[in-house]
């Protein structure tokens, strides 16, 4: 929706592909998934893998602290001015789906203050299997689950598992210790998602985030094409 075409008009309303000054805005990729599945670790690994190629920023949606933002700052994956925390009023899925205003504001402030940006990663607070991002906030979404959360999660489905543009099954290194059957998880995910991609990853291994980084590069290539 373009409500204002003037070059120095008010900022864009929602998911406009262009900013108020006419420049194409950054691609926004959401990362959601249950508590402890490795969303923040994946964001950190993606930042390390992509920061030399692209101009990046991160928005975190902590549920009741700034811990995720502070983890990213401590790990120094990006300069501090490129990391913003949004407070979510005890309801992380509301802030990424039903009322996205605070997140949109954070994304636009980042573009104003450190831009131009190529990519903004929006990390959801740890939530349940129904939490998905609004298309008004992100252009593509990654849902992160892990093998230790139970190998029946892909079978159970839910909007995150079923509809995310990329499903990441994290912590595959733990599978032998928690009795998770990776082949079964892969088959269940295939049944739920048809042709939508699934990546099994362990961030413990060298370059563990490589496949997800490749996927993000593809999204960026399509966005800027």
């Amino acid at each position, binding site marked *: 929706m373009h409500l204002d075409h003037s070059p120095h008009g008010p900022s864009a309303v*929602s998911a406009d592909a262009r900013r108020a000054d006419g420049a194409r805005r950054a691609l926004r990729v959401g990362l959601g998934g249950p508590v402890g599945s490795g969303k923040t670790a994946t964001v950190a690994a993606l930042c390390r893998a992509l920061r030399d190629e692209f101009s990046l920023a991160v928005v975190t949606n902590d549920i009741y602290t700034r811990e995720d933002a502070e983890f990213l700052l401590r790990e120094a994956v990006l300069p501090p001015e490129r990391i913003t925390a949004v407070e979510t009023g005890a309801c992380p899925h509301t802030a990424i789906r039903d009322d996205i205003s605070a997140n949109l504001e954070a994304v636009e402030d980042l573009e104003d203050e450190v831009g131009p940006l190529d990519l903004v990663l929006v990390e959801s607070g740890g939530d349940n299997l129904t939490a998905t991002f609004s298309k008004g906030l992100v252009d593509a979404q990654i849902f992160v689950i892990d093998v230790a959360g139970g190998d029946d999660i892909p079978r159970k489905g839910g909007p995150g598992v079923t509809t995310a543009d990329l499903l990441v099954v994290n912590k595959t290194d733990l599978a032998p210790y928690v009795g998770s059957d990776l082949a079964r998880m892969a088959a269940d995910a295939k049944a739920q998602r048809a042709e939508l991609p699934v990546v099994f990853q362990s961030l413990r291994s060298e370059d563990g985030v490589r496949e997800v980084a490749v996927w993000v590069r593809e999204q960026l290539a399509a966005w800027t094409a």
Partner: protein
Amino acid sequence: MSGAALLVLADGRFPAGGHAHSGGAEEAVKAGRITDAASLEAFCRGRLHTAGLVAAALAAAAAAAPTPSNSDAAADAPDALPRRCGWPPRRLGRQLMRAARATWPDAELDSLAREFPKGAHQPVVLGLTARAAGLGAADAAYCAAYESVSGSASAVVRLLSLDPFEATAVLARVAPEVDRVVDRAVVAGLRVPGEGAGVLPSASAPLLEIGAEAHAGWGVRLFAS
């Protein structure tokens, strides 16, 4: 006047960022001032007659005769709108602006957004939003007065696990007072064009303001305010 448009604007699900704010209730719960439905009711009553009245009068004034800069400056006067009163007014004003412009595209809203790219005061934006929606001064005042208590009540449901039926009954018991506050607010708001912003009520709630300052410094909290 359109009754249905008023319901759209007053709906708690209207995506203008309010869900992440408790209006000072989180601090009051932690301090032991809200422990049950009765103390929630007392809190709401206090909020309604201070922050609620001031916000409702500003909203009515802006809806009646939009001189946004003047209204916004009036809202900044130290004795007019207590600086926090439990809501961060400009941030919520910016978020309401985004939702309003997408919902009721309007030249006056565009011009206010251009003048205050980082947000005008929320009640002023609310008044202009009401105009854009074809609503009047009393409608704007109703939205402001009602949301001064409804946001806190729903926050307390999450903070105390208070029975949601009890919380809603609190709002019903306060409703006749909301009517009276709206009457006062509209009378004051309609005098602004002729007599200036000095006629607006300036009721303040020192404990809410002190609590808001303390809350802003907490390391761990569920709500942004």
